[in-house]
């Protein structure tokens, strides 16, 4: 890739930072990340949707739709306050640039990223999504690959008044991969950012979402599931900033952890002075399928307004024996019964995803995760 530079490893966040207490990136430091090799024969999903394809971090126009609202890559500002975004800023050479004009419904779009190579490499795409007033887009993102690599995408999202972005991510990266994704969304008056992440792949993953509600009655839905096994580690970190009055936010995060897997959820809700009638809801539940699995949950509320409704809850448990017996007593074998209960456990995190293709994709991803465990 022209102009490629090795990532600046000295900028990597350490566990000394409060925001990185539960996720240790030291395994990355022992690896030399080379230039991404060319990847020419992608394994494209059979979804009937227009798509944008990125192969080892580079746009692949030959596999991508020609979209009227897609533009050329815009390099990011050189300085950034977030360490991973800073590394991305210095190294980004490509990314999707989408700008849906006011009033337009752009339908659903697939953002497909595939990675693979013989030696370890790093890629830092910078995606920008801007929706004009009243515009709508459903962005379905699939990230997958094989081999050892570091995927460090950053999304900068701006939603004008009344716009709605449905953003569904299916993270099925290689089991040797590091997948660290930063998303920043600025949500205008009456606009909605509806996010869903399924963190299924990668050795270490983090989905860090900064959703800032800047206009009245703006809405942020951030739902996620972590499905992990082996020694996988997945972190979902959210920062929801209520800066205007009358904004609802809803977060439901569910983790299903097998073997020695470790899940993390850090959810921070900040309510600025003047953000009255804020309605912030947060719920985390972990289902431990093994006594060695671990879940760390850190809710944080920082409230500077008095007329607000903020609630959060967290539970950690195992499959319910009584429910399992009930299903089995009806002739359902134990494995199927367990699969049904796991699927049921995920239900209220998945429910907000309404786009049928996204739903189908998620159901399939969950099903295939389960079959492999």
């Amino acid at each position, binding site marked *: 890739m022209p102009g490629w530079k090795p990532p600046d490893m000295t900028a990597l966040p350490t566990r000394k930072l409060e925001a990185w207490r539960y996720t240790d990136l030291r395994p990355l430091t022992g690896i030399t990340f080379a230039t991404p090799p060319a990847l020419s024969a992608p394994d494209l999903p059979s979804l009937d949707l227009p798509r944008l394809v990125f192969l080892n971090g580079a746009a692949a126009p030959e596999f991508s739709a020609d979209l009227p609202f897609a533009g050329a890559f815009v390099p990011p500002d050189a300085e950034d306050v977030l360490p991973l975004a800073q590394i991305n800023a210095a190294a980004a050479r490509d990314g999707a640039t989408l700008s849906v004009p006011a009033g337009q419904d752009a339908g659903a779009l697939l953002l497909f990223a595939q990675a693979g190579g013989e030696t370890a490499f790093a890629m830092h795409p910078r995606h920008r999504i801007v929706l004009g007033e009243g515009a709508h887009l459903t962005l379905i993102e699939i990230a997958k690959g094989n081999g050892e690599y570091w995927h460090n995408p950053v999304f900068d999202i701006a939603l004008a008044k009344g716009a709605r972005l449905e953003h569904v991510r299916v993270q099925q990266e290689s089991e040797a991969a590091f997948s660290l994704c930063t998303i920043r969304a600025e949500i205008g008056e009456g606009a909605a950012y509806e996010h869903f992440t399924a963190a299924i792949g990668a050795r270490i993953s983090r989905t860090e979402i900064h959703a800032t509600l800047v206009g009245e009655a703006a809405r942020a839905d951030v739902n996620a599931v972590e499905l992990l096994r082996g020694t996988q580690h997945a972190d979902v970190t959210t920062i929801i900033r209520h800066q205007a009055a009358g904004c609802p936010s809803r977060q439901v995060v569910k983790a299903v952890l097998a073997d020695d897997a470790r899940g993390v959820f850090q959810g921070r809700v900040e309510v600025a002075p003047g953000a009255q009638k804020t309605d912030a809801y947060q719920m985390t539940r972990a289902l431990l399928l093994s006594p060695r699995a671990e879940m760390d949950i850190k809710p944080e509320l920082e409230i500077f307004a008095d007329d607000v409704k903020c609630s959060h809850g967290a539970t950690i448990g195992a499959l319910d*024996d009584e429910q399992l017996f009930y299903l*089995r007593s009806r002739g359902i*074998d134990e494995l199927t019964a367990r699969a*049904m209960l796991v699927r049921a456990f995920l239900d209220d995190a998945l429910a907000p995803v309404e786009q049928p293709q996204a739903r189908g994709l998620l159901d399939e991803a969950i099903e295939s995760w389960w079959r492999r465990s």
Partner: protein
Amino acid sequence: MLEIKNLHARIGEKEILKGVNLSIPDGQIHAIMGPNGAGKSTLSYVLSGRDGYEVTEGEVLYNGANILEMAPEDRAIAGIFLAFQYPVELPGVGNANFLRTALNAIRRKRGQEELDAVAFLKLARAVVKSLHMKEDFLKRNVNVGFSGGEKKRNEMLQMTLLQPGLAILDETDSGLDIDALKIVADGVNALRSEKFSALVITHYQRLLDHIIPDMVHVLAGGRIVRSGSAALALELEEHGYAGLEAA
């Protein structure tokens, strides 16, 4: 044919069943009555294979097979159905999906063809109607937010769909009004045949006005202390269980 021979079972260190003997020939309905804590639910769980109950002595044969060795799902496939005293709620599991998965699991193992979604819904809707349940029953999550009576009817819906050879009803009548009670009785009576038998656990004689049992047994202190004809239920209604444990 169900044959329970000298069945002893305990929960942890506590012995609950202390030598139960009971045979139910095909085509017959037997009732078990008895005071609270007698071990009636324990017996129903041991028969259906719930974890946590240790059988220390005795055996249970169903159609000649030793069912105590079988997993709960295999007992269901062999034809045993337990209508739970306290049906379990399954948030996130749709009733229709649950019923179809169960029905097809059983049909597959019994060598019958599986039902597709359309054929299943047609069948399920007909049963829902026959049980005087609302259509939305199939759309709701299993037992979640159901009233006590609705839960019991949902057990009857499952029983009717799964067509068991042996139904165990654990106080299905408790908390039901007379109309719901008749619906339950109709559900059981509709299954009556030479190949079907049932064990009806109840506190009240009134259910037995609608499901006429071939025999009535009294379980007290972990044993069957008395057996008789349907008339025994009337006698118990009048005199209670006092003195029976000693008998």
